[in-house]
């Protein structure tokens, strides 16, 4: 009989709000199944279960905010008898943190109470940030109705996705980065890589493909960095009570969200995925990051992060390590630059790469080996 608890989805998570159960009592579950959805500062996260069995009972009600470690459900092993009735008393929540009441919608304007408006119109106005005092009502007695607010709210950005509160996400980023800068003795290395071969190869490959089968340069970056992290010690793993290297490379991919916010979910075992499969994994991951539907394992099991500034960015970035990882590698925007090749100056596409790594685990010599390895791998793109 196991207790399924509110998982920690990052070093900075203290509590989560249970918003969906995907299983009920009597359902069979196996390790890796998504069983619930929890809303966190980083959006709605799908929570997986880590044992096989049958759901014996559900302990946590929808809509409640619970601390990490609070019991959510009881899972009995296959063949195990159902828990006797006496044992079915709900366990007290250990840290006794009361579920937060649903907050009242924020007041729309100081004088909102004086303006006749339907409840639906008030709720929508709060959602869109529309000031009711500036809206002309078309309802009975000049009351503001839903359609009036929608008309007034046109042109405003749609509200963020359910479960994606960008202010809360900013707090989470700040907490994680403060912890990182406080605890991790960072060191930094920079290197410029000639990308011309990789670019020529990629263009030729993509020219023969339908759009759905094309690959982005960013995928080559992730593959090369993942392979190098697998080969060079001290870059790939997590640091909790000492460094625990990882055999697989779970590559965290930094995804910037429009409107602000950043999230770095992991692609599991990225080093073993052929390029087309890795590209599909990245497409899927980015889509789910934007819609706020990532999995708990993707949030917690990253072993290194790769950040790419894309096509229209700047030359480079010195990044902050995402704890408990020990390295982050940032690729700048590739640019055509003068470079000496075989004794002659030539215009070549180049990219500036910056490594931030953890001095508790490695030093500059090791970091340099890692960056050189990425360079070497990108010179043979067809072998990635």
């Amino acid at each position: 009989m196991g207790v399924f608890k509110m998982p920690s989805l990052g070093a900075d998570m203290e509590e989560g709000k249970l918003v969906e159960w995907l299983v009920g009592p009597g359902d069979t579950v196996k390790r890796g199944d998504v069983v619930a959805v929890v809303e966190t500062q980083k959006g709605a996260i799908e929570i997986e279960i880590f044992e096989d069995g049958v759901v014996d009972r559900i302990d946590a009600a929808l809509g409640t905010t619970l601390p990490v470690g609070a019991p959510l459900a009881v899972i009995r092993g296959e063949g195990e008898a159902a828990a006797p009735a006496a044992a079915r008393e709900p366990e007290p929540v250990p840290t006794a943190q009361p579920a937060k009441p649903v907050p009242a919608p924020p007041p729309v304007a100081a004088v909102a109470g004086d303006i006749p408006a339907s409840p639906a119109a008030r709720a929508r106005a709060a959602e869109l940030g529309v000031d009711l005092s500036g809206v002309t009502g078309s309802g009975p007695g000049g009351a503001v109705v839903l359609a009036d607010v929608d008309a007034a709210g046109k042109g405003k950005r749609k509200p963020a996705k359910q479960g994606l509160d960008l202010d809360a996400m900013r707090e989470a980023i700040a907490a994680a980065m403060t912890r990182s800068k406080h605890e991790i003795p960072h060191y930094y290395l920079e290197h410029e890589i000639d990308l011309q071969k990789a670019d020529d190869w990629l263009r030729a490959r993509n020219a023969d493909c339908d759009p759905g089968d094309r690959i982005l340069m960013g995928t080559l970056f992730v593959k090369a960095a993942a392979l190098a992290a697998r080969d060079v010690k001290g870059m790939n793993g997590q640091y909790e009570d000492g460094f625990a290297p990882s055999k697989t490379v779970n590559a965290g991919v930094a995804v910037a969200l429009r409107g602000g916010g950043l999230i770095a979910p992991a692609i599991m075992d990225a080093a073993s995925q052929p390029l087309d499969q890795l590209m599909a994994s990245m497409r899927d991951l980015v889509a789910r990051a934007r819609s706020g539907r990532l999995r708990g394992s993707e949030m917690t099991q990253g072993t290194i992060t790769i950040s790419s500034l894309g096509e229209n960015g700047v030359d480079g970035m010195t990044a902050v390590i995402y704890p408990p990882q020990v390295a982050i590698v940032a690729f700048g925007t590739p640019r055509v630059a003068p470079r000496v090749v075989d004794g002659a100056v030539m215009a070549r596409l180049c990219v500036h790469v910056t490594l931030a790594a953890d001095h508790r685990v490695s030093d500059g010599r090791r970091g340099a080996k890692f960056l050189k390895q990425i360079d070497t791998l990108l010179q043979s793109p067809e072998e990635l």
Partner: protein
Amino acid sequence: MTEDDIKAAFLEELISVAPDLDAEDIGGNDHLQDDLELDSMDILNLVTALHERLGVNIPEEDYHGIETLNKAVAYLAGRLG
């Protein structure tokens, strides 16, 4: 297919790729990457969606031809015509 049909189709696929944008807000000369903040993955997803919907396979060297709504309508009309 009229230019209005192409415009509607392009906007629909653009919003599908970037659901936090509002079709009403998108100006004819807004640059997809500089103004609307689409990244290379979004552009590829848009090109893929246009290929599936309109049957127009846009090669990478033509991506600049769809960098704004107005340019895209002209480009797609040319390819469809």
